[in-house]
């Protein structure tokens, strides 16, 4: 392939292991299998990418500075393993959901649970803040998505989205949309502004969904070891990415910081990166021996976090100097 002459700088991909966080979460898994032990995720604000949250079967959340490799705080209060966590835009709050069917809202600085939202009938698979951290949206194995109000003291959810026919594995939010991926093989997009629900049938159970940075596309990973890039407005297939292995676990897919590449965790211990446009496999990162349980991409830098076997690894581009300031 030949590229156009006035072409912008080639996007870098994280190829170099810089830091390893021994979070140990999920290491003591009683059944030996790599059950969703620890999930690394960058604290969500798009303006910030300095922190990282891990959670796991030790019922705690941990806040890290992945660039320096320091653990900042541990949050305990969940009754069972914590399955997902997300941070608010101003880094002041954390929401998390776990197998205790509860969604917890944490204060970052005090480490205390501010509120606990109960109402899900099953494990809470995924949680997300909205843009202003006024609503927590949580998806559960009970096939509902619940929107919890952070502002009022209301104990019940603002709205329950119960359209899914099976467990909700992934939830993402944009400014006015709720994107859910469900095990019933559908990607649903609730558009609050338009008042419309778009349900795209993929067929295979969806493990992870995410918006592209420009908000025009939706990336969906499913258990048939395929990632699909769908046009948000029409639902048409824009690209398909295969090569990794995803048949059993809820694995994450990510888009790189400039929407140039598509990444996905794999059950063979690697992270795969495809060119978004060409669809060709560009990079395979050997993260570990077991399943790569979680992935997170830095919002602005070519910087990747991958969780595997109870440790989180930070990957940077080749040119990155570890001494330099991460920002």
């Amino acid at each position, binding site marked *: 392939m030949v590229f156009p002459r006035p072409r912008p700088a080639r996007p870098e991909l994280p190829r170099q292991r810089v830091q390893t966080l021994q979070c140990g979460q999920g290491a003591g898994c009683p059944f030996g299998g790599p059950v969703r032990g620890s999930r690394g995720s960058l604290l969500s604000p798009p303006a910030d990418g300095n922190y990282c949250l891990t959670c796991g079967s030790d019922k705690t959340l941990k806040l890290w500075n992945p660039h320096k490799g320091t653990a900042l705080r541990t949050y305990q209060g969940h009754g069972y393993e914590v399955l997902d966590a997300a941070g608010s835009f101003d880094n002041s709050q954390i929401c998390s959901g776990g197998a205790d069917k509860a969604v917890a809202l944490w204060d970052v600085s005090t480490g205390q649970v501010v509120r606990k939202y109960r109402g899900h009938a099953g494990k809470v698979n995924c949680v997300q803040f909205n*843009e202003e951290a006024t609503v927590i949206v949580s998806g559960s194995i009970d096939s509902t998505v619940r929107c919890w109000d952070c502002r009022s003291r209301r104990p019940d959810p603002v709205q329950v989205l119960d359209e899914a026919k099976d467990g909700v594995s992934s939830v993402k939010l944009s400014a006015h949309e709720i994107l859910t991926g469900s095990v019933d093989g559908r990607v649903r997009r609730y558009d609050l502004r338009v008042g419309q629900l778009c*349900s795209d*049938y*993929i067929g295979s159970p969806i493990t992870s969904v995410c918006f592209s940075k420009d908000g025009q596309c939706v990336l969906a990973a499913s258990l048939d070891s395929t990632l*699909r890039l769908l046009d948000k407005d029409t639902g048409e*297939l824009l690209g398909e990415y295969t090569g990794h292995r995803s048949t059993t676990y809820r694995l994450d897919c990510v888009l790189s910081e400039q929407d140039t590449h598509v990444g996905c965790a794999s059950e063979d211990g690697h992270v795969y990166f495809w060119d978004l446009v060409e669809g060709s496999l560009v990079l395979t990162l050997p993260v570990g021996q077991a399943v790569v349980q979680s992935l997170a991409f830095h919002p602005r830098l070519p910087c990747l976090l991958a969780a595997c076997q109870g440790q989180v690894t930070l990957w940077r581009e080749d040119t990155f100097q570890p001494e330099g300031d991460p920002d």
Partner: protein
Amino acid sequence: AAAESSDSEEDLVSYGSALQPLQEGERIKKPVPLQEQTVKDAKGRYQRFHGAFTGGFSAGYFNTVGTKEGWTPSAFVSSRQKRADRTILGPEDFMDEEDLSEFGIAPKDITTTDDFASKAKDRIKEKARQIAGVVAAIPGTTAFDDLIGPSKITVGVELLRKMGWKEGQGIGPRVKRKPCRQKPDPTVKIYGCALPPGLSEGSEDEEDEYQPENVTFAPKDVMPVDLTPKENVHGLGYKGLDPSQALFGVSGREHLNLFTGGSEETNNLLGDLRHSKGRKLGITGQAFGVGALEEEDDDIYATDTLSKYDTVLKDEEPGDGLYGWTAPKQYKSKKRPERELKYIGKILDGFSLASKSSGPIKIYPPPNLPRNYRPVHYFRPVIAAGNDNYHLQKALEESTGKRESDPTQQSRHALNAAQRREQLGETGLKGPAPSVLDYLSEKDRERLKEMKQASEEQMKAKIVAQQSRNSRFQSASSDDGSHKWEMLLGGQLANAGSSDFKPFAKNPEKQKRYENFVKSLKQGEKDTLERFLDPNMTEWERGREREEFCRAAVFYRSSHSTLSSRFTRAKYEDDVDKVEVPRDQENNIDDKEAAVKMKMFGKLTRDKFEWHPDKLLCKRFNVRDPYPDSSVVGLPKVKRDKYSVFNFLTTPEPTTSVTQATNEKIQDSNLLNKPKKPSRWDVSDKEKEKKDSISEFISLARSKADVQQQPPVPATEECGTGPSETLPTLVTNEDKNQEEEGRRPPMDLFKAIFVSSSDEKSSSSEEESDEEEQPTTSVRESETTKQVHVPDSSSSNVQESVTATTDSGISSLPTSKQELDAAQEFGPKLPPAFSSGRFCKLLDRKEKHRKIRERHKTKKERKRKKEKKKKHKKQKNKEKHKNKKSEKESSSDTTDSSDSLSSVDTTGLSSKELLRR
């Protein structure tokens, strides 16, 4: 009065003090009114009564610390030399003197304080003192205190001690006993039943062997029976919180350990220690808040975390830890003889405790009652209503006073519903009244009637006023209409409504016979069953069927009538049979799966619904409510019939509205959306050079699923077969040419899809195939121009045949006419695709949006093809390459006639079909 009694009467006894003798002219004092009567205390102060609930008396000055002049604080004078000494006020400072008197609230009497009490009394305190002595600034000072110990011990105890008695022992001669028995275990209380005898006895015997014979022990200390009456309403054994322990005995951090005595002792120790250290006592702990003088205000808002609670059973429990809570503990009292457990108290003279416990009292359960037992006894003898017994019955009834001479005077309870209805003048229920006779067969009914008639006549002859209880029997007998039964039954059956009860649904003939039977019964016909029975059946079968029908009729009627007599129709329509169903449901996934397989994402896989977000959610998301007027939240719901078929059918309303958009619309949207995602560094200028191959790859990828389904083709031709699937249906020749030269598909998309196959190899092979195809297509062109309208299905096959060079390709060819016929079966004909053969290459270069449009149209067609292909395989062996051409021509001829129709069809139909999905 006593005073006025004269002195002469000496023997009178006077009580009380005499009144003052009245002075002359003095008025009699008025008695002091009740409200002015005051009570003063010993010092002349008024005592005001407040009533029972406010304490009954007042303290101080109107319950204040002040005086009549007001409250004066204690003078506080401080200078550099003379500081005001800090006085610690006790409760006594606020009490009156009489409160401290013998009858006050805090009577003071002289007691020996702890300092002067005997140390031997409690060892714990002594130990505490020792510890305090060691810790104290001058160690050993307390040792001197011990030297001068004042005695508080009574003389009796002193005497006993001198006689060799020790605390904890009983009084009396020494006995042969185990030492362990001396100590009664006060912690173990056993209520109710004793321990199983085997347990304690066995262990006792076992240990007796090791008992030296010459060793005697002091007798057991007698536990005095606590004879204090229980005056409160607390539970047995309840002890109020010990203030000394609650306030400063135990530190606030630890919770009271109720189970182990040892720790309590240590707590006491600690408490004493603190006391001796002079730590300021006061109320501490979270429950009382934090005082102003307290320093520990760091956890004012302490939250109760789970980590403060014990979650694990501690191993402090006695034994090996194998037991849970409920398992028997290894009691120390296990060795206690049971007879001590059984009776604690004084044994009467002349009695001794039994050495053996009597066995547990056997409890005999009451006998099981039979199911039909009714706990009511009827004393009235039951007499058959025969003729002989009539007089007797009558006499009995007279004697009991229950004689019913007239049915109108029957008691209310003796009436049945029908009779009551008649008396009230109400109309009967619509449902037929159940009657045994309805369920009988014709013959039986006849026979019964005859019998009854005979008996009735007999009765009539003998009895005058006797009336049968059963009105139905009565009417039947009196009217004597043999066919009235028929009429009655027929009418009731007619009332019974439609017979949706089908007992013989499995056998339609039988069911028909049964229905006829019922119908004729309704019409009041006789001998119905015989008529409708199958003449071919044997006698036995007939009999059997008759029985069956009767039984079925009975069953039907009984269920129907009993139910109808019990229920009335609802006045208002209920909502029971309506359910709330989301108005729009996701369509069935079969079509979608097919679409996914063909990678035709987009309209086919998408469902769009109206969705109402919650108002608050909109607010939180800073979004205007899209439906400000609606109160609906979520998907709009409609009420549907609960058992409607439509609940199970998916309703394509939303998709119809959406997909009413025609192909043009789709095209538009594609045009709009597709070029949205160009990526800067990937768009190359050279792409035009490779355009052919790339576009072919694109189309290949698009129709990947089809390629997979197609019969195997040579690897080099793999790309050529792709476009054959995406046939143009509407686009004309010119359009294609224009498009070929004009717009190009966005490169990035092609690239995105074309990933897996290696570039160089396929592209080179593609060019080869192009060259190969060129001559063949030209040949084909001549054919197709002759027959301008070739059905699409056949043309695709033609194309396959062109591209295919090996046998495998040939095998997929439809050659016989049967096949074409079969193809026609599957649906309306597709529009002519005369260009398909020739322009398979051009197709490759088409724009993606057009292909998508075509895909929608050709989807149906593909399905047909799939079916066809199966047939192809069947005929694989028959076909030969030679006759391919001729047959093809013939096939095109056959379909020629229907071309005009089909072309019209597909334009409308494809969209229709789309709508259906």
